[in-house]
């Protein structure tokens, strides 16, 4: 058995570009999924009954589907239905955003629900209206509970971006597997891919632990 690790260095430019796309996908998905998640959570909590049912159905549906299937579906179905073709990158971003929005909506809803009703009632007794009670009493406390969950969703999302490789988005997993196929240096390239994910993901996982300790709830 002889290994030739120089293949990794030779393709450093492609790997760096792939890594950049992975990071871009993670950041862009979160940038979409946080505001959208807040909107869906608010619709679910305070919306008109049919809207509430619809928001609940959306959240439950996407939380109970494998992401890889959503990616395939988003790649094949909408272009046929609408005649509009998005680039693989935009398709992958849409699929990731749909998925993470559902998880974030659940996180926000649970965070707001975790603040006891008595607190809102007490705030209203003190003369605040609903919006004030929400903004000044519920949200500041809910944020502390939401942040750690959002942090672990972030790490999951970072890893899940690898799934859009199946529709040829040129992120880290796709690039590495392409180089593997061209160079036949299977073990070297796959190990390099794992190592790059590890180098990026390990500090993030540790940061999540820190955030969870920092915001641990003691009641």
């Amino acid at each position, binding site marked *: *058995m002889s290994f030739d690790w120089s293949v990794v260095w030779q393709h450093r430019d492609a790997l760096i570009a792939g890594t950049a796309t992975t990071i871009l996908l993670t950041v862009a998905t979160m940038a979409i999924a946080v505001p959208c998640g807040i909107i869906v959570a608010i619709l679910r909590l305070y919306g008109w009954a049919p809207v509430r049912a619809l928001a609940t159905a959306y959240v*439950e*549906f996407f*939380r*109970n*589907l*494998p*992401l*890889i*299937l*959503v990616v*395939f*579906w988003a790649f*094949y*179905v909408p272009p*046929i*239905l609408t005649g509009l073709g998005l680039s693989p990158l935009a398709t992958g971003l849409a699929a990731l955003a749909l998925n993470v929005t559902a998880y974030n909506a659940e996180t926000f809803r649970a965070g707001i629900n975790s603040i006891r009703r008595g607190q809102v009632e007490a705030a209203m007794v003190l003369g605040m209206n609903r919006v004030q009670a929400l903004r000044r009493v519920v949200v500041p406390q809910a944020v502390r509970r939401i942040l750690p969950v959002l942090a672990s969703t972030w*790490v999951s999302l970072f*890893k*899940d*971006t*690898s*799934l859009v*490789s*199946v529709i040829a988005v040129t992120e880290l*997993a796709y690039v590495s*597997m392409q180089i*593997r196929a061209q160079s036949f240096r*299977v*073990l070297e390239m*796959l*190990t390099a*891919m*794992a190592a790059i*994910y*590890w180098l*990026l*993901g*390990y500090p*993030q*996982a*540790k940061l999540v632990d820190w955030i969870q300790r920092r915001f641990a709830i003691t009641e």
Partner: protein
Amino acid sequence: MDFDFAVITDHWRFLASGVGITLLLSVVSGLTSLVAGLVVALLRLYGPRPLRVAVVLYIDSMRAIPVLVVLVWSFFALPILTGLTMPPFVAALVGLTVHLAAYAAEIVRAGVESVRPGQTRAALALGMSRAQIVRRIILPQAIVRMLPAFGSLLSITIKDTAIASVIAVPELMRQSETLAGQSFQPIEVYTFAMLVYFFILFPVTRGVDIFYQRVAHLGRS
């Protein structure tokens, strides 16, 4: 736009075999990662110090590496390293177990640590051994508390088996891809696959919730 769902009914055996493999892989890898996770957690909690460090490194590494990467690595790279070729199903089982055992171990650890240390001290004072305390005081309470987390791990396991399609395990996702490609009817096939996955996963998540509500009182102390 015409839809022709005959493609589903015509190839129902092909798709049903995929559902069968999905369920089989989910159950088997769920069980193996449960057992492996328990061992890893006990090593992390009670093992000798150098081993504990290694176990923590393993768990945190699995939290950092995508499951796709683990699966692809165990199917394509591991045989080069060891000389053993594994069929896709076995490679998927190995990859999923290595990945999910780390999560199972964290759930077990959190459950065990949620039992107050005062109880351990009380049991020690009553003359119980360490093994007895773990078996008779800590685990009976901790297992109930772990249930919701294991429920979500089970649904994660089922969802992750779909990723095994990239190493050609003939489960539902892979069968759907093949059928969609051959019939040129991706809309019907992928939409059907979505519904099947949803109707497998939704009862699982709901069932675990209901079961936990029934037994939650057993975990209180």
